[in-house]
C-alpha cells in the first residue's frame, strides 16, 4: 500500500488517512482487550474469553479477521509443552486467582487490520508484573535497531540475547515460523469472509502475495530467525510481538510498527500509537 508506506510526514499526530485507519482499529482492539480483561473472573474459560472478544468486536462492526481472537491462561501464556499449532486455540482451561492471561486478537475494520496482544493477570502475580516491566526494553531495542536499518534476522537475535540476559525464554519462537513480527496490510472488504484455521482468508491471501513478491525481491513478510529474514526492514506495517516466557508465566505485547522509506531516522520507523495500555503502564511506573 503505497499510501501507507510513503507516510513521510508522520510526525506527532499528523498521520495520513491510511495510518489513521490502522490506528483506529488498533485502539478498538485494545479497548476490546481492556473491556474483556475487566470482565474476567475465576472460572472463566479460554473459550469464553475468546468468545467475549469476538462478540465485543462484532457488535462494533468487525466482520473479518486477520486471525480470530485467542486467549491463553496460566502456563499456556508461556506455551508450555506446545508441540502442534492446534494447541494455540482456546481450551476449557479455567482462570484462577493469580493466573496470568494473554488476549490476542486481529480484527479487520473498514478494511484496516490490527493485530494486538494484551497481557494481564487476575489479582497479584509478581512474576507477571516483572515480565511486563521488562518488555519495555524490547520495545525500545526493536525500534532503535529498525531505525538503524539492521537486518531483521540480526534484530531478532539481539532481542533473543536481551531475553537471555534478562533470564527469560523466547516464546515467540513457538509461533508459526518462529516469527517475532509479521506484515499486515489493508484487506478488501467482502460480503463473505471465511477463516481457515482461525486465519482470515483475505489476510492470508495478502500475506501469500507479499511472500511471493518478497521472495522475488529478497524479503519476507515474516520476521523470523531464518535466512529468509536476512534483509533490512521492508517499508510497511509490521505487527511486532515479542513474547517472554519465564517458568510457566508468559507476557507479550503486540502492536503495529510503521516502517517507511524515509531517510530521516525518526520518520523511517515509529510505533503507530504510543497511547496503549502497556506503554501507559510503564509511564505510570516511572512517574510513581
Amino acid at each position, binding site marked *: 500500500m503505497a499510501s501507507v508506506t510513503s507516510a513521510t510526514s508522520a510526525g506527532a499526530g499528523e498521520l495520513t488517512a491510511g495510518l489513521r485507519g490502522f490506528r483506529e482499529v488498533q485502539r478498538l482492539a485494545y479497548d476490546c482487550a481492556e473491556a474483556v480483561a475487566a470482565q474476567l473472573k475465576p472460572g472463566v474459560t479460554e473459550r469464553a474469553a475468546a468468545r467475549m472478544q469476538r462478540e465485543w468486536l462484532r457488535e462494533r462492526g468487525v466482520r473479518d479477521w486477520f486471525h480470530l481472537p485467542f486467549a491463553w491462561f496460566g502456563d499456556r501464556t508461556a506455551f508450555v509443552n506446545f508441540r502442534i499449532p492446534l494447541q494455540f486455540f482456546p481450551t476449557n482451561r479455567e482462570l484462577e486467582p493469580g493466573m496470568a492471561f494473554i488476549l490476542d486478537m486481529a480484527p479487520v475494520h473498514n478494511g484496516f487490520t490490527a493485530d494486538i496482544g494484551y497481557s494481564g493477570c487476575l489479582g497479584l502475580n*509478581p*512474576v507477571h508484573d*516483572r515480565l511486563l516491566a521488562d518488555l519495555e526494553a524490547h520495545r525500545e531495542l526493536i525500534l532503535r535497531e529498525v531505525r538503524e536499518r539492521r537486518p531483521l534476522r540480526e534484530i531478532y537475535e539481539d532481542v*533473543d*540475547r536481551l531475553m*537471555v*540476559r*534478562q*533470564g527469560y*525464554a523466547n516464546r515467540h*519462537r513457538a509461533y508459526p515460523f518462529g516469527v517475532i513480527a509479521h506484515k499486515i496490510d489493508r484487506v478488501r472488504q467482502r460480503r463473505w469472509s471465511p477463516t481457515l484455521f482461525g486465519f482470515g482468508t483475505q489476510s492470508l491471501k495478502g500475506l501469500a502475495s507479499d511472500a511471493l513478491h518478497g521472495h522475488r525481491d529478497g524479503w519476507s513478510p515474516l520476521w523470523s*530467525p531464518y535466512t529468509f529474514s536476512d534483509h533490512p526492514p521492508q517499508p510497511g506495517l509490521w505487527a511486532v510481538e515479542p513474547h517472554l516466557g*519465564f*517458568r510457566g508465566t508468559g507476557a507479550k505485547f503486540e502492536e503495529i510498527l510503521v516502517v517507511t522509506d524515509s531517510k530521516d531516522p525518526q520518520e523511517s520507523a515509529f510505533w503507530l500509537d504510543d497511547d496503549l495500555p502497556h506503554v501507559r503502564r510503564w509511564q505510570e511506573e516511572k512517574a510513581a
Partner: protein
Amino acid sequence: MNTGRGRDKGRDQRPVQGSGEGSGQGAGREPGAGLAGATERWVRTGGIELCVAELGDRAHPTVVLVHGYPDSKEVWSEVARGLADRFHVVLYDVRGCGRSTAPQPLRGGFTLEKLTDDFLAVADAVSPARPVHLVGHDWGSVQAWEFATVPRTEGRIASFTTMSGPSLDHFGHWIKRRVTRPTPRRAAQLINQGAKSWYVYMLHTPVLPELAWKGPLGKRWPQILQRVEKVAAGDYPTASLPTDAAHGAWLYRDNVRSRLRRPRSDAYAHCPVQLITPTGDAFLSQRLYDDLEQWAPRLVRRTLPAKHWVPRTRPDQLTSWITEFITTQEEGDPAKHATTRGPYADRFGGQLVLVTGAASGIGRATAFAFAEAGARIIAVDRDAEGAARTAEMSRLIGAPQAWSEVVDVSDEAAMEKLADKVDTEYGTLDVLVNNAGIGLSGSFLETSTEDWKKVLDVNLWGVIHGCRAFGRRMAERGQGGHIVNTASAAAFQPSKMLPAYSTSKAAVLMLSECLRAELAGQGIGVSAICPGLVNTNITATARFTGVSAEEEKRRQTKAARMYGLRNYPPEKVADAVLRAVVRNQAVVPVTPEARGAHLLSRFAPRALRALARMEPKL
C-alpha cells in the same frame, strides 16, 4: 478427662545442670547428658511418673517432642537444642522408658488410650493455656497420630510433625485395602512392607525380646546403630536402653494386633500435619503415606534421603522444617499455604543451594529450578549483574532467600573466602552445583599453553576448588548433602574439534565418580551431568584457536545459530539436575545425542572414534 490431671499439681522442678539431686523420686538414673541446660520436672499421671525436660523461653510457642522405640527423650537432644532458640521445647520419656516409671503390670499398661492420657497430662503441665505443637518420631509418631486424631485432644494440638511412624489406624486401612482388592502393584506393596516389619513379629514373641535386649542385643545396639543406621556415636543411646527396649515391647503387644484388626474409621487429623519421610527407612515403606491426604487434609509433605533415625542423623534439616512449619501455623497466613511449588518442593524446601556459573545458561536455569522448589539460593558468577539478576528472579519464583556472589571459580583463595562467608552467614550447603565452564574449540596443535591453562583453570580447577572448599564442610557437618558437577557429553565423545574442552570435562567426570565413591559413606551424593548441545551462550563466548579474530567472531555466531536451531532449552537440563539429586544418579547424559553418545561409548566406542574425526562446517 484423665486421671492424672488433678494430681500433677504436685510436680517438682529442678534444673539438671550441676546437681546430683537430679535423680528424684524417679527411676534414680543419671539425668540425660544430652539435654544440658534443660529443666526437669515430674508429671504424675495414671499411677506413673513421667520425666519431662524443658528448654527455651516459656513465653514462646510450645513444641512437644515424643521419642520412639527403643529410645528415650535423649534421641531428640540435637533437634531440641536447635529448636530452643525459637520455641519452648518440651521432651518427655514415654512411660516405661528413660527416667519415667513403668506401669504395673506391664501388660495392658501401654495402650494408646493411656499414652494419650500421658500426653494430655504433660501438655496441661507445660502449656495449660495454649495448644502445643507436636513432633513425633517412630513410636512417638504412632502415638502422636492417636493424639492428633482422637476428639478429646481437639484444641490442645496446634500442629503435628510426623516422621517414620504411621497411624496404626491408617496402617490398618492401608493393609485392608490391599488385601481385599489386591492388584499386582498393591500386592507387591503389601509384601514389601510385610518384609520390612519383621521386627514387629519378633517383638510379639513372649520373653525372648526382653532377654535379648537385656543381654547381647542391648550391649551391641550402639554398634549396630552406628554400622547399619549410620548414627554417630555420642550421648545416644543412653544407658537405660535395655529397660527402655524391654518395656517398649509392650507398645507393640498392647496395640498393634488390636488396631490393625479393627482400625478406627474416624482417625482424621484435627490439626495441620507435616509428614517427613526418610527415603532410606528400613522399617517403613514410603507407600504407606500414599493416601494420607484423605486422613490429614492440611498435609505438607517433606522427603529426606536418610535412614530411620533422622533425629540423630539429620537434626539440622528437621530443625529447619519444624521451625518453618510451626512458624507458618503460628502466623496463620493463609497466603503462605497457598503458594504452589515445583515438583520437588517436598525435597528441597528451605535447603541451601549454591550454583556457580549462575549468571546465564544452565547455571541460571538450575538456580531457578531449585528456587521454584523453595530452596535458598546462592548464585555465584564472575558476571555481577547476571548473578544479581538470577538471585532477584529466584526470590520472585519461590526462593525464601537468595543472594548473589561475585567470584571467579578458578581463584582458589576467593573460593575459600566464599566458603567461609557462606558458612558463617548462610549455613552449610545442602546442594552444591559446580556448573561454571567455558568453551574452547580448535585443534590440539594450534592450542597454546595459555588456552589450555584458561580452560583447565575454569572447567577443572573451578570444580576442584568448589568440591574442596564446600565438600569438606559438608562432610564435616555429617548430615548428608549433594554435589553436582556439570561435565559434558564431550567427556565421553572424543572430537578433534574440542581437545582441551573435552579433556577438562572428562577430568570432571572422573573426578565426580571418584568423589562419589569417597563421600558415599557420609551420605553425600555426587552426580556428573553431561548435557550435550544446549542452547546457551557458551558458544557465543567460546574461544576458537588458530583463527583470526574476525573468523573467531564468525564461528561464534555460526555456532550460536547452530545451537539455537538445535534449541535444547537449559531448563530441561535444570530438571535433569534436580532429578539427579533426588535419585542420586552418578552420571546423567541429558540430550538425546548425549545419551546416544554415552551408550555408544560403552558398546561401540569405535563408532565414536569415527565421529571424532568429523569436522562440522562452521
